[in-house]
């Protein structure tokens, strides 16, 4: 089955709810090694997204994702704002004016989004950033597609890989973002951005499980 425009809308709404439910946890992670705003920023952004969404409900997937990206850009701020905005914008630009897409389209979109994050933030794997969740998730997704795994399972594997990547940030010393100012003291804490992107990919897997 393909992923419909409405599946995309449902996923965005679901993720907004996930943020609403987890913003305190995200802010708390950021309090430990950052500046205690990641949850609050994402929450402000996705509240605005929910308000904006009705204006593009009848539009194509690319337009929807780009609109989410633009909204995040003007509402989130901080490092998270441009980075999350880029994920959605590049993904939207990659998918383009489609009303439905294949899993492979999603994989390409995600790849473009992640490449955007890497370009913008100049971070690498193991710098203790969201990339540590995103890269493994993308690899797992591409592998699953290559192995012919059905959509639901493929997305699940991708989300699980993100989750592992997120956990793997704990022992790392941060080299990018605000946590890097802590040097050695950043060790032993889970990266907030890797956590919120894991939640993002988990909500994808949940909502598109039957696609």
């Amino acid at each position, binding site marked *: 089955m393909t992923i419909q425009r409405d599946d995309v809308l449902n996923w965005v709404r679901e993720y907004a709810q996930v943020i609403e439910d987890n913003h305190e946890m995200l*802010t708390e992670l950021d*309090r430990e*090694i*950052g*500046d*205690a*705003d990641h949850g*609050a*920023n994402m929450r*402000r952004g996705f509240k605005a997204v929910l308000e904006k969404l009705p204006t593009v409900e009848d539009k194509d997937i690319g337009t929807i994702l780009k609109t989410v990206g633009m909204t995040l*850009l*003007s*509402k*989130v*701020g*901080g*490092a*998270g*704002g*441009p*980075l999350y905005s880029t994920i959605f914008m590049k993904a939207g630009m990659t998918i383009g004016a489609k009303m439905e897409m294949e899993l492979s389209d999603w994989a390409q979109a995600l790849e473009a989004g992640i490449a955007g994050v890497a370009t*913008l*933030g100049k971070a690498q794997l193991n710098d203790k950033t969201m990339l540590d969740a995103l890269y493994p998730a993308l690899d797992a997704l591409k592998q699953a597609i290559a192995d012919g795994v059905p959509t639901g399972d493929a997305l699940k594997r991708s989300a699980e890989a993100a989750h592992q990547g997120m956990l793997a940030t704990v022992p790392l010393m941060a*080299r*990018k*973002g*605000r946590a*890097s*100012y*802590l*040097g050695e*003291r950043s060790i032993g804490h889970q990266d907030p951005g890797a956590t919120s992107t894991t939640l993002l990919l988990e909500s994808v897997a949940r909502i598109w499980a039957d696609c």
Partner: protein
Amino acid sequence: MKKLINKPEDVVKEELKGIELAHADLVKVYYDPDFIVRADAPVQGKVGLVSGGGSGHEPMHGGFVGKGMLDAACPGAVFTSPTPDQMLEATKAVDGGAGVLHIVKNYTGDVMNFEMAADMARAEGIEVESVIVDDDVAVEDSTWTAGRRGVGLTVLMEKIVGAAAEEGRSLKECADLARKINGQGRSMGMALTSCTVPHVGKPSFDLPEDEMEIGIGIHGEPGRHRIPLEPADKITEMLIEPIVTDLPYKEGDEVVLFVNSMGGTPLIELYIVYAKAVELLAAKGIKVVRHLIGPYITSLEMAGTSITLLKVDEEMLKLWDAPVKTAGMRWGI
């Protein structure tokens, strides 16, 4: 959390309202996107100076908008860098045809958002240059990391480059001057207490009664080291030493010495730190020719101090002394 606020999510908007009501002679305040511009912006033929960053550092940056300093400031949420649309609108509002200089503190978020805004402004035909401030010696400088933070030097840069822009210097000259200042300025800070971000409702870090954080930033991030409390003289030494050795500042150098309160430290203590700092510098043959003492770049109600040194020449001194009329810094007018 004990604060004179209403709802945490309204703090910045209500603050802007207060600034608007108080300083209508100096600035205009715009909302959604939020930014503050000089009352007489755009000044034709003058380079426009735009800065911005999270709120919670008052008077920086909104309090530095006015004649002789910034043309616009973009306030983000508390401790969160503002968004490109604020910066873009501010840039457009102050462009007087001579281009716009973005003064950006070196934080991943600030840099990325300002970069995007600069691109958008250029796409609209405005000449934009950006200067990054990264003066915090508490952070190791390396191409593998996010680099040093921009802290106290920002205030001095905004004053001096503001005067240069007011004098009619070109965008390139202003940008070059700003980069020169960045090359000659260093800072380091410490905290006696944490601060509480309104939407978080609890202290950004927990600090026992007998300890302090050395090498903090301005966003309630913990510092590099947590050590037992020391007397003011010793703390001053712990801040001055790494600053002086980093550049390094040398015998015969003339400097502006900036002793900043992080918010909760009162003036009476700053003067004690100032006296010791002057003494330590004098012993190294470094001469303090100008100073700034007070809460200029703060972290909400955090108790603590930061010290900034800027090596100056005659030109910079002249610009430092030039008239400035803002809510947060004023002389000569």
